[in-house]
């Protein structure tokens, strides 16, 4: 990574989301960006049943971008390997869309949407970009039992996730 990446204190960006999520009772709005229909189905179902979330699924980057300009999400679950664009490029394109669309929901101007990278790739291979509208709060490996995955997502949804994101790196540009 060297000159291409820099470490950032994720806790700095994540505290607002975590504090608000502890006090809010409304269902969390979750966007799952995932091209694997089996994974998106079981994750969406579990988050609805277990955490009473409102879940939408985008199967490709373009569907995701269309959803994001219409709605702000309390959590975005991002598959890193998507058809057409990588997860990093998907969020970069979404960032452009949010910057130039005058009709986006006001929440996008006042807070960042937390993004959890969800991938079977190595964590070190998933280098998100620092952006204005998205806050990369963590990485969850797909290659583990479903109950463990759901419990980990639950920690982000309920605000119990410990602030241990310092080891994540962000790519520059």
């Amino acid at each position, binding site marked *: 990574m060297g000159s291409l990446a820099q470490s950032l204190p994720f806790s700095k960006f994540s505290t607002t989301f975590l504090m608000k999520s502890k006090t809010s009772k409304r269902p969390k709005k979750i966007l799952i960006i995932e091209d694997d229909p089996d994974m998106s189905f079981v994750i969406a179902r579990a988050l609805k*049943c277990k955490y009473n979330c409102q879940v939408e699924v985008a199967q490709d980057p373009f569907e995701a971008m269309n959803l994001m300009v219409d709605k702000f999400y309390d959590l975005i679950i991002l598959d890193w390997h998507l058809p057409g664009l990588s997860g990093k490029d998907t969020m970069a394109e979404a960032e452009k869309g949010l910057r130039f669309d005058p009709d986006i929901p006001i929440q996008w101007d006042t807070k960042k949407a937390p993004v959890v990278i969800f991938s079977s790739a190595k964590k070190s291979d998933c280098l998100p970009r620092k952006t204005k509208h998205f806050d990369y709060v963590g990485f969850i490996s797909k290659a583990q*039992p*479903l109950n463990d995955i759901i419990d980990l997502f639950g920690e982000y949804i309920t605000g119990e996730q410990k602030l241990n994101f310092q080891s994540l790196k962000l790519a520059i540009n």
Partner: protein
Amino acid sequence: MSSEVDLPPEAIARYIERRIQDARDCREALNKGDFAVLLKVGHQVKGNAISFGFAELGEIAVQLEEFALKKDISSLKPILEKFESYIAKISAP
């Protein structure tokens, strides 16, 4: 909150149906030398097999992805056979 998440039987059945199709697609791809298909299937199944209770399939998929990435046909052949026989085993009535 750590209660178990149950998988509905129809989701498991759909999962197996997709893997049957994956096995067919991989066989066709191997015959054509289309490593992108093998890579995609290997990567996807590596990520989803454990969640559906098929850890061994996930391990096979790791190798499928690895050899597809290297375009290693001689190693891909036995791994695809393993993949196919595992799918045949779990899809048997």
